[in-house]
């Protein structure tokens, strides 16, 4: 881990000193243990604050959305300049998708690909420690030793990683300019749909239970690298498509609509799930669509730069067995 971070800092420093980029977007240590926060580095002296480990949960591609690019304006210039961005596999896929959708130009972005072995699911950690406060932690031999005020407890790393990370299809960045660490072989080829075996009624019950937890804070939308509409349909008031209450069908309509809007674009990074304060499990919806898109249109989002997203094109021979 240490050597990975050193390599990362070296690479970032080099990019900044050679003036290849004006800004580096990466992670630094957060205020609490197990928390990291995105950071924006313009000067060489700040490079040392960069980190990369299993706490780096945000999808940094979010900061390349048009509305946010405006905030990165380089001093004394008109635009955001060149940006170097630290990209684990799912960030890289989201960035590729943003480039494909012409939200950002490839020549403005330097992708620093990084080897990622999974991101922590803080809910699982908290459950494993019965909600006790963590003061310190140490990673050793596939175990994480957590320390608090009056306890010490090891948890197996594989038990506390995010579900989406455990079923990650492409653990290596699809596109990058430089790569940090060792590429991870053994990519899985099958999309895992954990609700597949259930009956429609059981699935309905599952979603009823999950979606009822939603408080409509829109953290999922804000964390999503591909939710970049200037005005979200859910915020519109004329016409008002969505009720503003947390009534179940209003909430569910919002989530289904968001999933349909990101159909064929969602890279399955799980940023929405990690951002959720009430831990709504949105993954099955996204996974189902991802699977369907792959089967029907043979497309996986964010893998290559010269493609047209599936919902923006068509094939005359698309299957239509469901149409009378």
């Amino acid at each position, binding site marked *: 881990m240490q050597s990975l971070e050193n390599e990362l800092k070296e690479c970032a420093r080099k990019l900044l000193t050679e003036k290849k980029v004006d800004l580096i977007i990466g992670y630094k240590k957060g205020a609490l243990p197990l928390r990291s926060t995105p950071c924006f580095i313009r000067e060489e002296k700040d490079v040392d604050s960069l980190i990369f480990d299993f706490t780096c949960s945000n999808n940094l591609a979010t900061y390349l959305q048009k509305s946010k690019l405006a905030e990165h304006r380089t001093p004394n210039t008109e635009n955001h300049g060149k940006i170097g961005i630290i990209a684990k596999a799912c960030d890289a896929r989201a960035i590729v998708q943003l480039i494909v959708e012409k939200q950002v130009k490839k020549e403005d972005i330097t992708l620093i690909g990084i080897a990622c072995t999974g991101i922590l699911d803080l809910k699982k950690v908290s459950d494993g420690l019965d909600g006790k406060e963590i003061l310190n932690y140490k990673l050793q031999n596939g175990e994480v030793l957590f320390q608090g005020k009056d306890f010490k407890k090891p948890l197996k790393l594989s038990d506390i990683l995010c579900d989406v990370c455990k079923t990650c299809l492409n653990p290596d960045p699809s596109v990058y300019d430089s790569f940090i660490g060792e590429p991870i072989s053994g990519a899985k080829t099958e999309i895992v749909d954990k609700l597949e075996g259930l009956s429609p009624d059981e699935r309905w019950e599952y*979603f009823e239970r999950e979606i009822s937890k939603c408080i409509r804070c829109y953290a999922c939308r804000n964390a999503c690298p591909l939710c970049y509409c200037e005005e979200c349909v859910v915020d519109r008031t004329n016409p008002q498509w969505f009720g503003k209450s947390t009534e179940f069908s209003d909430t569910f309509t919002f989530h289904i609509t968001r*999933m*349909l809007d990101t159909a064929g674009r969602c890279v399955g990074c799980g940023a929405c799930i990690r951002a959720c304060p009430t831990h709504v499990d949105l993954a099955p919806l996204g996974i189902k669509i991802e699977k369907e898109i792959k089967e029907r249109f043979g497309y996986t989002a964010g893998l290559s730069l010269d493609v047209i997203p599936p919902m923006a094109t068509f094939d005359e021979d698309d299957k239509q067995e469901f149409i009378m």
Partner: protein
Amino acid sequence: MSTKKQEYKKTGAQEHKSTGTQENWQPKIIAFLCNWCSYAGADLAGVSRIQYPPNIRVIRVPCSGRINPIFVLKCLQNGFDGVLVSGCHPGNCHYISGNYYARRKFAILKTLLEFIGIEPGRVQFSWVSAGEGEKFAQVVEKVADDVKKLGPAKRFVKRI
């Protein structure tokens, strides 16, 4: 006199109650029809005096590509028991390719709705051309039949 009046009231109340559940219940189905084909197909069915169930309420749209999945979700939310979307056969779109794009949207929408547990018969899609009055009647008959079998929509209906 008074007993008679009471009886009348009683049956009235019973009738009212049964509309929501049993034999007297009639589904409300919304049909989005493309102006250039299915809408004309419905018209042809009408002028040809072909009988079909009166359960559909038609909304004319310029193209099946105009259908936003939100329309369908919104209909289910507002208490329609079924939704039918009908457009031009592939290759016959007035706008060249609107129905091809629509087909992709519908495929994903239908899969997702079935996945979350909405009965497959509730939301249906068809291609009906302007000359297929007969087919239009058959499609409506099938949709009405399917929805009648499913009963009133309960899932997804807005409760407040």
